[in-house]
């Protein structure tokens, strides 16, 4: 069994090895399956949103971006967090509300972050990350840095005002930001075609005179290639662009959702293009790895995640003082008095 490196930056750097990208995709999948199980069993309270089926985008972000670039994403962010480098311990710790969580357990599933690998706190409000990413890019541009910001939002988020305002602002200022729409076909329980009158979401780029492109989101190489071009463009000062990544949400929207509303056969059709399977075939076809090697990777990930679950379950929740930490109060203000 391979030990998971301890630090997020090391875990990020490890992805330069193509086998590690396969390991990471499996790590996300297995992690998410485990999470779903823990919630289903009632071992974790609250809600969670898993991202099975969207692993290619998660890992492509990690391999394409520099570690000093910045990402805003959504509550469906475990995969991106793990891909960018956050350790399964810090992610699971947060999801389970333990002191080992990335913010000590006060946030939960929707609030992951690690500035060391460029992940801003994940956004629980649909669309909010879009202008915030533009703002990060604004900081880079104003200071003359060649860093890039990437906003990842869902298909459903393209209908909210913040999306529109964020893109327009970025376009006017030619900000170094790439707007990625992870089109996983659903927003909560609504199929995208019931809430959005166009099928090609990248077409909305035209409203802001920026390039728009849609790409197969199940194929890691395809996503990486397209994302790479858009990021390079942004880094070169050529302005923002919009990339629709076509994935599919294999699970329900959140904890309790069985996704009974899916048309018959839809899930199976998409599962036939499971990003992990496609990646596996590609690695074998290219002679990068043998089936046995990949099986072994999968097994080692499975074992490692089982360890993480065990370790985290044995980790305590924070004590009451954690509730009061990290609230800004001006120094001169009198201490909050009696009621």
């Amino acid at each position, binding site marked *: 069994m391979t030990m998971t490196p301890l630090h997020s930056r090391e875990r990020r750097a490890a992805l330069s090895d193509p086998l590690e990208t396969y390991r990471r995709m499996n790590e996300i999948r297995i992690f998410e399956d485990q999470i779903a199980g823990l919630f289903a069993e009632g071992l*974790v*309270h*609250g*809600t969670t949103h898993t991202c099975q089926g969207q692993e290619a985008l998660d890992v492509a972000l990690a391999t394409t971006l520099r570690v000093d670039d910045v990402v805003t994403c959504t509550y469906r962010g475990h995969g991106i967090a793990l891909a960018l480098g956050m350790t399964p311990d810090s992610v699971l710790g947060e999801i389970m*509300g*333990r002191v080992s969580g990335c913010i000590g*357990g*006060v*946030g*939960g*599933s*929707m*609030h992951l972050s690690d500035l060391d690998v460029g992940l801003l706190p994940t956004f*629980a*409000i*649909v*669309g909010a990350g879009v202008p915030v990413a533009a703002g990060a890019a604004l900081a880079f541009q104003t200071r003359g840095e060649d860093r890039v910001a990437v906003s990842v939002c869902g298909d*459903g*988020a393209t*209908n*909210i*005002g*913040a999306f529109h305002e964020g893109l327009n602002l970025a376009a006017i200022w030619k900000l170094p930001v790439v707007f990625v729409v992870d089109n996983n076909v659903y*927003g*909560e*329980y*609504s199929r995208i075609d*019931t*809430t*959005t009158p166009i099928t090609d979401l990248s077409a909305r780029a035209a409203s802001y005179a920026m390039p728009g492109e849609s790409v197969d989101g199940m194929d890691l190489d395809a996503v990486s290639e397209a994302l790479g071009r858009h990021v390079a463009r942004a880094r070169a000062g050529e302005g923002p662009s919009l990339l629709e990544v076509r994935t599919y949400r294999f699970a329900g929207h959140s904890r309790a959702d069985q996704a009974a*509303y899916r048309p018959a056969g839809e899930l199976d059709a998409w599962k036939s293009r499971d990003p992990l399977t496609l990646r596996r075939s590609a690695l074998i076809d290219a002679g990068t790895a043998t089936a046995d090697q990949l099986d072994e990777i999968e097994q080692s990930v499975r074992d490692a995640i089982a360890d993480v679950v065990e370790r985290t379950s044995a980790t305590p*929740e*924070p004590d*009451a*003082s*954690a*509730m*009061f930490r990290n*609230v800004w*109060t001006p120094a001169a203000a009198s*201490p*909050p008095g*009696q*009621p």
Partner: protein
Amino acid sequence: MTRMRVRQAIVAALADEMRADETVMLMGEDIAAAGGPFKTSEGLLDEFGPLRVRDTPISEMGFTGAAVGAACMGMRPVVEIMFMEFLGVALDMVVTEAAKFHYLSGGRVSVPMVVRASVGSGGGFGMQHSQTLENWVAATPGLVVATPSDAQAAYGLTRAAIQHDGPVVMLEPRALYAERGDVVRGADGILPLGKARVMRPGSNVTIVALGQTVRVALAAAEELDAEVIDLATLYPWDQTTVLGSVRKTGRLVVVEEAPQSGGWGHEIVSTVTSQLFSALHAAPFRITCPDAPVPYSPSLESRHLPTTEYVRRQVTDYLRTGQVPAPWWLEEGLTA
């Protein structure tokens, strides 16, 4: 009288109003085909059809605005804001448009719309999905704000809200949706807006609560001679009932799901003090959440909201000493 969950009482109220008045219609994210994220509109699409029960895109500004327009044109739209926080992208439509249209049309335009929003902590939804945020809609002449505390109130206030000719915001404690209670349906079950409910008579102290804190206050009051009032409507709140009670008891405690700073209970304490100063036997005070975001970790989240144990202890101390007790976090030396 039927036993039902709070969320079923809401469905019942919506259905009864939709049957009685064909201008009533519903809009919101996943409220139609899926019956609502919290199942508060289950079955309504089937009965009333897709013109009157509409799933919306994720665009709170868009559909809340559409409700304003539809209301101006004679409909009675009920919109669902899945979590109160989402009104942060659409508050303009409620406070600056809907609440002012009657005034700014010289009384010619009415906006009989209801904004239903789930609020509060207890579900492990984290700090951006667990606030009550009454303050966002406070200080808005022309806007009614109500909060049910049980199934009857959910039924009765929802119907009254739909019947009201101006805009109403219904803040629904998410943690109560699954609670069961006995519900009188029909006209007798309607609770007028602006009327508080005396949940338990008492003579020693008046405890004012709202939404989720009503059951906490009731449980805490068990061994005390406390009068527990469910405010039910927060704006405009029932001064007659509250002042009447405090006139009798001479003591006031507000139990509140809101931070110590900025919470609505200040208004109750302040109004009662200004009006009944000489009738008070002791300082009125508030039992609140601390000035910190709602934390996720279950053991912390459950302490954020005042617990029954804590309320009982605070009120008991208050009655015993006549002094305002310090909140738990100061007792434990914790501050933000």
